């Protein structure tokens, strides 16, 4: 079974099958107000160099002081990744020269990171769940931003981002397809957003991935890898892996060898190309930062953080399944934090669990997709949605009526209960009214009555006609029962 699963992920080359091996280094910006080692702000989109302290600009004589909140978020994230928390970790200097790094070194963690090994479970669309090992999570500073398109001869530098706290989260090379890589990133993002440790906003660069890709014959040792830098969307992760794996396979099959290098992904062409920087740039000469003491804390503090951790996607999913949702529905609902929040607000507003999930997947997700909206941007509040679902359950409206009501609330807004009253959407369960409607349809279609007697399945046509004549307000079950009695058909069939 797993053999077949693995085989399906292999790529075909001219000379046989290839396995692609992927590991991700994700940089996630800590959702802090101030930077990792200075009191300058981190807000996105501020005026150039307006959020830069003398420390961030690396002026002589300035000393870094670490932000407690950032440490806390790194530990909470580690706990969310079921990872080992290191009570003693060390900050090192990673030395290299680039204009957006004023100090000439980045403060990072090298041999002793704050978080050690953990794991993430990733649900794949086919129903398979893969386990991806986490090697480590460490805290480090972000660099500034270089702007190259302002002038033909000069680069413009904005240090607002310099010194912002990042969590670098390194996976094991456990991913075997571009889809798995994208799904892993999606799951990691969901965990970070549930925890609130990173806002996960990829458009604003709050989360970006370096993607390590290599290929090998199934069963062989790992091949030489290339690192694709700064990929900033799930789709680009998938595209860059697809391109890079194919490039490596073609190169090896043509008799070439892979050179370990850093590459860039060009989202316009969908291709990767080598960076021009010299290989020497990788000699970072790490050493412990003499400006900082080791970071130490007590297990009791970690335990306290663990106790206050919110419910995470895997736990939520298990709870939703227990409440009667299918594993598929449950995993769809927990994949995006907004969808989960919306769903839970619906349930809190009185909607029954299963019915709420059905309404979301049958009525709401489709409308949102069509409108190009996220669930947080849709026009129907979870309370209104909860009311719609509740009215179906207590038989105030029919499922057909729910569809109409959803349309009205989507376009016009308003309180669903008031709309049902004012527009006469209430389901008619009054048997005599339905009886009359059924009788009318039957007497208008004597030939169909004969047909149904011979072919009971054709009764559905009558139900449809009666629903139509009652403007969708008749209770379909009642219509069905009356029809069957009048036509002399068995109760169900």
């Amino acid at each position, binding site marked *: 079974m797993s053999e077949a699963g693995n085989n399906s992920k292999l790529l075909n080359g001219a000379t046989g099958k290839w396995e692609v091996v992927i590991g991700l280094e994700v940089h996630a910006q800590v959702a802090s107000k101030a930077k990792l080692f200075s009191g300058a702000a981190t807000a996105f989109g501020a005026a150039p160099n307006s959020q830069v302290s003398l420390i961030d600009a690396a002026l002589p004589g300035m000393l870094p002081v670490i932000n407690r909140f950032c440490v806390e978020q790194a530990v909470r994230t580690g706990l969310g990744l079921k990872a080992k928390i290191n009570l003693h970790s060390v900050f090192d200097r990673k030395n290299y020269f680039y204009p957006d790094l004023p100090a000439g070194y980045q403060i990072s963690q090298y041999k002793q990171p704050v978080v050690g090994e953990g794991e993430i479970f990733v649900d794949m669309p086919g129903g398979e769940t893969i386990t991806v090992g986490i090697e480590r999570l460490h805290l480090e500073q972000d660099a500034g931003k270089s702007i190259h398109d302002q002038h033909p001869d000069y680069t413009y530098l904005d240090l607002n981002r310099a010194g912002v706290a990042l969590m670098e989260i390194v996976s094991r090379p456990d991913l075997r397809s571009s889809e798995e890589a994208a799904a892993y990133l999606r799951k990691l993002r969901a965990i970070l957003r549930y925890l609130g440790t990173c806002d996960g906003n990829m458009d604003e660069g709050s989360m970006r991935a370096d993607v390590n890709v290599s290929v090998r014959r199934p069963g062989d040792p790992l091949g030489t890898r290339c690192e694709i830098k700064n990929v900033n969307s799930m789709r680009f992760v998938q595209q860059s892996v697809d391109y890079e794996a194919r490039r490596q396979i073609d190169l090896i099959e043509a008799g070439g060898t892979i050179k370990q290098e850093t590459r860039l992904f060009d989202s316009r062409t969908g291709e990767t190309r080598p960076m021009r920087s010299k290989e020497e740039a990788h000699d970072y000469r790490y050493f412990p930062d003499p400006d900082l003491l080791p*970071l130490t804390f007590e297990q009791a503090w970690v335990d306290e953080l663990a106790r206050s951790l919110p419910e995470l996607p895997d736990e939520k999913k298990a709870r939703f399944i227990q409440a009667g949702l299918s594993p598929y529905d449950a995993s769809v609902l927990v994949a995006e934090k907004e969808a989960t929040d919306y769903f839970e607000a619906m349930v809190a507003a009185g909607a029954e669990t299963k019915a709420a999930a059905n309404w979301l997947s049958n009525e709401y997700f489709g409308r949102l997709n069509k409108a190009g909206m996220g669930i947080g941007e849709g026009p129907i509040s979870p309370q209104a949605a909860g009311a719609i679902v509740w009215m179906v359950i207590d038989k105030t409206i029919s499922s057909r009526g729910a569809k109409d009501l959803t349309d009205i609330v989507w376009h016009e807004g308003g309180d669903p209960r008031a709309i049902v009253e004012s527009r006469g959407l209430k389901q008619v369960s009054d048997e005599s009214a339905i009886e009359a409607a059924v009788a009318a349809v039957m007497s208008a279609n004597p030939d169909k009555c004969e047909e149904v007697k011979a072919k009971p399945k054709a009764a559905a046509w009558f139900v449809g006609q009666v629903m139509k004549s009652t403007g969708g307000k008749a209770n379909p079950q009642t219509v069905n029962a009356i029809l069957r009695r009048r036509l002399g058909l068995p109760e169900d069939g």
Partner: protein
Amino acid sequence: MAVDRDTVRRIARLARLAVDEDQVVAMEGELNALLTWVEQLQEVNVEGVPPMASVVEQRLKLREDVVTDGGYAQDLMLNAPQTEDNFFVVPKVVE
């Protein structure tokens, strides 16, 4: 551990130091003398002693997550050789 001339040239370039060829020879000697002297530490038995990251016997001080700094872009520009609209301007570096 010994340093050869290629290593001297490489270290100098990594540190962005311009070192003339005749200086390379002198530095090779100086660096090797330094390393030999420091290597005396190898005589000490450090079995079971954790690596030392600091000589200060106190804990790392932590700061609250409050914005207390920044907002003086114009001051930061004062030392820069070239600026525009509060950007630092440097020779083109592009990948």
